[in-house]
């Protein structure tokens, strides 16, 4: 069956207005990262599949959606993928090129590819940050502040930070005697809402006082909630104390810095990937991105045992959420240069005027199509005159036209009226 549209399913075109919003997100994110001392990197679109298949990297569900294939020189049987995630390639980049650094503060703006059913997007763009080095707990604090600052500067505040620690769930499931692989399966069932999964775990923990529902379905606003969870479960699950304490330190610090925090025990699906606190950013009621600590990742891709954490924001979602004021492109402060005819000296003069006008800081365009409407505030008409070439300047906002024999005079007049910076 041949698709009707010449565009591939799940792929998106970005029109000029979309691109303006997209670039706005990029620009704000990039500015914030540079200000916090992060450096930009870019990794290749194609990577080896095996980078993503080891336990603890991508979940099996995610692996089932990667675009993998044999490259033109793939006779060795080694498959490659269109990057399905940007963190793992950045970890690979660190291992290959930056291992000597005690602390690597990296950021990127990259696309990722994952299969989705129907016309759901199969290509996404991420603004991501990776912090490699022994930074806990300060690293998490910095990352969360950086993400919140980006979102607020985009006008998407106030941001709610939702926090989770996979160690909480892991310690409960381990105490119940489940092996690591079984832990993943049972946790997936709990997330899927399978009511029998919690009951099965509870059966394995006879000393449990409080129902596990309290842990998996409840949410709280801060360290008081964490203290309550400790009181309810620490006796039956002593290992829960460590993760709760880590979360409490983070929540206390962030709250003191003015962040709105919310703690939820069961937050992320791919908990195999994370080793420490996990966070999500909610803006305008929508999840705008997230991240966490993954201390095992660098070693999994062949590097030393170095801690790491990071986050990524969903560019397309942020672009969509941008307040409408961001949509307006300030075309009104632009100049449209119109040659009155196609005579060579007229066209040369029209294009020749563009450089000096741009030097005034003005956005410019040449009227390439005759009689096409323009949204520019100023219109410069270039026409033949007795002395060679003459210019007229029309100010739409004041509905006033003036004639000039020389371009320099026109530029001076424009500058005097506030045109240009």
């Amino acid at each position, binding site marked *: 069956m041949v698709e009707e549209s010449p565009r591939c399913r799940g792929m998106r075109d970005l029109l000029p207005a979309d691109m303006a919003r997209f670039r706005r997100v990029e620009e704000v994110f990039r500015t914030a990262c540079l200000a916090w001392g992060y450096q930009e990197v870019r990794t290749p679109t194609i990577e080896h599949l095996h980078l993503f298949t080891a*336990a603890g990297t991508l979940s099996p569900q995610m692996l089932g959606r990667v675009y993998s294939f044999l490259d033109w020189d793939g006779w060795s*049987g*080694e498959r490659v993928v269109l990057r399905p995630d940007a963190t793992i390639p950045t970890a690979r980049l660190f291992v290959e090129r930056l291992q000597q650094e005690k602390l690597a503060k990296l950021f990127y703006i990259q696309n990722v590819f994952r299969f989705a059913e129907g016309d759901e997007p199969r290509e996404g763009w991420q603004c991501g940050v990776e912090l490699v080095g022994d930074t806990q707990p300060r690293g998490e604090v910095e990352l969360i502040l950086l993400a919140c600052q980006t979102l607020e500067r985009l006008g998407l505040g106030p941001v709610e930070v939702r926090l989770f620690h996979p160690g909480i769930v892991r310690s409960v499931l381990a105490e119940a005697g489940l092996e690591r*692989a079984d832990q993943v399966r049972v946790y997936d069932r709990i997330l899927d809402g399978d009511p029998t999964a919690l009951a099965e775990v509870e059966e394995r923990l006879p000393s449990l006082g409080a129902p596990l529902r309290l842990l998996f379905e409840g949410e709280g606003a801060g360290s008081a909630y964490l203290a309550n969870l400790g009181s309810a479960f620490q006796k039956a699950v002593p290992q829960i104390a460590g993760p709760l304490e880590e979360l409490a330190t983070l929540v206390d610090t962030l709250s003191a810095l003015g962040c709105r925090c919310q703690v939820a025990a069961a937050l992320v699906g791919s908990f195999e990937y994370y080793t420490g606190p996990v966070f999500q950013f909610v803006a305008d009621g929508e999840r705008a991105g997230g991240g966490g600590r993954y201390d095992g990742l660098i070693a999994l891709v062949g590097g030393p045992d170095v801690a790491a954490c990071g986050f990524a924001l969903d560019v397309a979602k942020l672009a969509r959420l941008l307040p409408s004021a961001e949509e307006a492109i300030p075309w009104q402060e632009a100049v449209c240069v119109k040659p009155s005819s196609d005579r060579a000296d007229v066209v040369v003069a029209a294009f020749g005027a563009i450089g000096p006008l741009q030097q005034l800081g003005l956005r410019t365009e040449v009227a390439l199509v005759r009689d096409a409407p323009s949204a520019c505030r100023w219109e410069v008409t270039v026409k033949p005159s007795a002395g060679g070439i003459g210019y007229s300047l029309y100010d739409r906002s004041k509905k006033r036209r003036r004639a000039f024999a020389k371009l320099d005079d026109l530029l001076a007049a424009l500058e005097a009226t506030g045109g240009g910076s």
Partner: protein
Amino acid sequence: MALKLALPAGQLARPTDELLRRAGLIVRGYTDGSRSYRPRLSGRRGVLLRVFREKDIPIQIALGNYDLGICGLAWLKELLTRYPSEAVVQLRALPLGPSSLYVAAASDSGLTSLDSLAGVPGLRLVSEYPNLTEAFALSARLPAYRVFAVSGAAEAYPPEDADLAVVAAGSEEEVREQGLRPLCRLLVGSPWLIGHRRSLEGKDLSTVLGPLMALEGGRQREDGLELPAGLAAPPGSPLATERPSTTVRLALPDGHQQPSAAAILRAAGLSCEGYDEQGWVRRPRSSLEGLDLKVIRPQDMPQQVALGNFDLVVSGRDCLMEHLLQFPSSPVEEVVDLGGGQFDLSAVVSEDMPADSLAEAVELWRRQGLKAIRVASEFPAIADHYARQNHFWRYQLIPISGASEGFVPEDADVLIEGVQTGRTLAENKLKTIDRFLHSTSCLIASKRRPPPGRAKLLSQLIERFRQAGSPPPTADR
């Protein structure tokens, strides 16, 4: 509009025919030795039947070319594991004998159980079912594994040329009979009746669906996949795969190329116990010291040379071209044209098409406003290359595994196919409009310099084949 039912060729054909008979559906020209791919249903109007290789049936259903089809669960899951398609609906398991897929290792290898695979990097897995094999490797979290898709004879690969094979078998005992040790069952289930979702939603299929759904027995769960849990273990050492530096390994073809290859061996003065014009075993023995032989599918041979598993293979130029078009940097080349098994790779269309050349056909399709030219072939890389070279505007490549003559005109517009005498084409009302590659049997070797201990015997063997072979190959047009 007629109801279109896809029926399996091969081993499943006879049981399917009997099952249809039990359901009161009498099929003529299916298993009675007919060479037609279009049998007929007695006493029922408006039903079109078509015979496909089992592997192609789920694809035809997913494409919507056929409303209903019957195929084994393994081929169905092979498609759906990689390409989850809402268009394919599993209607019912049929009361036909179940079959299984097993993950197996060589019986004398160190891989004795599923747990023994934990953390072993670089495992080589071979199978006719690459998508299910990939799903197994991902689920077991094997580190840096490699999957090799082969067109058959997967059981012949371990231990020299693969560490694990995913093979179809009726039981663990059958796996052992193939010289392998089963490590786990990956899938079990009976053949299924499947349908195209849109056909079910809007077309009356009751003529065939009713009797088949009313049959007793065969009910079972939809999935039959038994994927293992992740084998958590720190990365360990890879298995040793170094082969002896003094042994030359030669692969010989099974299938229709086998008689001519046996004749070539005889002409080259190589006597092989277990490989002659009458028959073959997977591991024939050569009287020549230092020469190791194995019989595999000719389609899979060029890749085996590229991997360094074999020094020489007797295959076809079509297979070499297919490999090189898929992997242009592969270090393999034809070293001797052996002359046997001659045919031309050709573009084939319906006899009724008013076109005598490819240019005329392309122009006609354009005039007819065809949205996309459907190109079916057992050689997808060659067909893809051919379509690009000849500026087909928009085309849809349909890789098929056989029974190709039945595809045109209903399910494809053009077939890229090996043509010898053209008799089969004529029987199926087809004609050739372009012959573009002359293919013969050929000896294929690696471009890499062989290890010193192997070089002398290797050059002696090539010389023997050269003397036994025929003139240099005709150039690709």
